[in-house]
């Protein structure tokens, strides 16, 4: 950052230098996340396990079946959330936009709430009535279905409406409606289901097992690739829709692509990890400030890296190494993200003074 306005914008050069550094930090955070957890596994044991050697069976199992999938999930989820946040901030030219602004996570929450609580409502749901969950996979499926339904709604609306601000407001309204429906469901459910739903909203990287991880990873990588393909148009969008169209960008096609890609990434992460907030809004700002650029060719890989790093750090903190306590992921991300958001508002960052239309 150059507070003196010296303004050397050598973005690409800076990035070329920062990229290996960031990758190094990512690797370090990844390893740290593998090493730290509530069970104390000494580092040399970790090395032995990775090398394929034998240590205590429990330690090996913990490493392969708990720590490793959790760390990989954090990497993908953090990157995906940061990237969706970037897409939404560029698309709406609003520094306070986050991945859920179109109501994606509300849709996912509604799907999850419905599955969790419908068992309690219909007396006919006989066998499962005493049980809140039907099976973990169906929760993820319900979340994706809910997110997808909202996505279709938003796409339908956006095909009829020109203005971005209108879509933004409609997305927010959809969130409210979904939230209201969830509240109604909560009203009629029993304590256990309510508790389970509340737990889901805490967010967690630990719930993804090897069975689910490939699905999540593949879908998110698709999202990453789609975003990469859009960098040129994203840069053009920085000047606004009218300029972007005058430069030859097909606005409706890009709008469709952005909305779908965001919904894909945000929806998948919400489905598997619960609604994790603040990463989407804070990391893009962080990247812009770090790399001193608005060029998406730098920001896209940058956000993936920084998002992954922050998610890993969050995971390490939430497991409070050395103790039994587990803190909800959403609490940690909020503690990190809120100061960044405050900084954005108060300083009126260089991204743009306030909200632009």
């Amino acid at each position, binding site marked *: 950052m150059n507070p003196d*306005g010296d*303004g*050397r*914008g*050598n*973005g690409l050069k800076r990035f070329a230098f920062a990229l290996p550094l960031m990758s190094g930090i990512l690797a370090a955070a990844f390893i740290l996340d593998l090493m730290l957890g509530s069970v104390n596994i000494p580092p040399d044991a970790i090395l032995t396990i990775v090398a394929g050697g034998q240590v205590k069976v429990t330690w090996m199992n913990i490493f392969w079946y708990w720590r490793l999938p959790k760390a990989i999930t954090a990497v993908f989820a953090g990157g995906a959330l940061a990237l969706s946040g970037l897409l939404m901030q560029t698309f709406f*030219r609003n520094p306070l936009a986050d991945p859920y602004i179109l109501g994606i996570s509300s849709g996912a929450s509604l799907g999850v709430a419905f599955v969790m609580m419908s068992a309690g409502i219909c007396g006919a749901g006989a066998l499962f009535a005493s049980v809140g969950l039907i099976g973990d996979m169906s929760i993820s499926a319900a979340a994706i279905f809910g997110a997808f339904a909202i996505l279709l709604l938003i796409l339908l609306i956006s095909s009829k409406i020109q203005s971005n601000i209108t879509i933004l407001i409609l997305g927010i309204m959809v969130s409210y409606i979904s939230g209201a429906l969830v509240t109604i469901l909560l009203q009629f459910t029993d304590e256990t289901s309510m508790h389970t739903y509340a737990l889901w909203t805490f967010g967690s990287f630990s719930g993804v097992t090897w069975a689910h991880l490939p699905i999540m990873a593949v879908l998110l990588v698709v999202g990453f690739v789609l975003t990469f*393909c859009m*960098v*040129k148009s994203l*840069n*053009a969008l*920085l*000047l*606004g829709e*009218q*300029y972007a*169209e*005058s*430069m*030859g*960008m*097909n606005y409706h096609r890009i709008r469709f692509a952005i909305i779908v890609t965001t919904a894909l990434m945000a929806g998948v992460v919400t489905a598997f990890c619960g609604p994790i907030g603040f990463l989407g809004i804070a990391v893009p700002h962080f990247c*812009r400030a770090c790399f*001193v*650029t*608005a*060029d998406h*060719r730098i920001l896209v890989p940058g956000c993936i890296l920084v998002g992954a790093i922050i998610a890993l750090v969050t995971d390490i903190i939430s497991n409070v190494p050395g103790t039994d306590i587990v803190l909800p992921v959403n609490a940690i991300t909020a503690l990190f993200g809120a100061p960044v958001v405050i900084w954005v508002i108060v300083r009126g*960052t*260089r*991204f*743009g*003074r306030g909200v*632009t239309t």
Partner: protein
Amino acid sequence: MSAAPLLRCTNLTIGYRNQKAAIKVVSKDLNLHLKRGELVCLIGPNGSGKSTLIRTLTGIQPPLCGEVFLCNRGIGEFTPSDKAKTLSVVLTSQVQAGYMTAFDIVALGRFPYTNWAGKLTESDKNIVLSALASVGAGDLADRFIHEMSDGERQKVMIARALAQEPDMLVLDEPTAFLDLPHKIETMRILRMVAQKTDKSVLLSTHDLNLAIRCADQLWIIDRSGTMISGTPEDLVLSGVFGSAFEIDGVHFDASRGEFTIPVDKRGTFSLSAQDSIERIWTSYALERIGFVPADGAVPDITVTIQKDGSKPAWTLSHAGEEQTCESIRNLVEIISRTNFQGR
């Protein structure tokens, strides 16, 4: 080089349909053309339909009737990419994009030519730099846009439009937020672009004085949507220019080529001096305070200017009395103190 117009419209009717499918016609039966190397100013009062016309001519909005041809192709036939290579725009609104240098912004103009990742080749970079140089913003290349003044920012946006290498530039009130020196500079740049690079320039503006002087053609829309086009001088001589814009109390002075502010008449004057700059400005001052030339009749006041060396001196004679003043201010003060009966 073909003399065929770059942009042409035939029997164009512009307007829009609102949600109830009712049609609002803004202007109809327009037959306009714009040649290469021409600078056209589109002027008209607010709400007359300038924006609608620009949007229709650039293909953003469909016409209600008639056709628009760009390079002899219907504008609807262009792919977005082809159209971008032929036509670029500069809009009024200030771009708010943080952490972008002038170079980055101008480089965006290469959008229609670069590959999927937007990578700039050497020739792209050269085009960007020369676009910046041609608007006199070469040294701004590494500065962040949010740290520039309005004038500098507008130059960068024009450079961006140039980097797009279009055949035609369309600007929507590009000088609206600029101060006078920058307004003039912008017009100068646009004139140079039109003449030297043989591009067509269409801009809408409220700056009538600048428009008259800089434009090769004027397109004037009045409030009823009637369009008049022609060279500025022809329009002034035919009196159309004045009548299109005159509203109560505002009068277009054809000889001076500008709008004047009418003042209540207080008297007549006769000015005797050599043809000089002092004579011109003294007569302006006298007109400002309400005096018109006597034109043969007996004047209420007579002012004589004498120049001794470099210092002029004014002599005011009125009702037999004479007074000498050292400056026009002096002169005006004395006249103001004196009581005149209007005639």
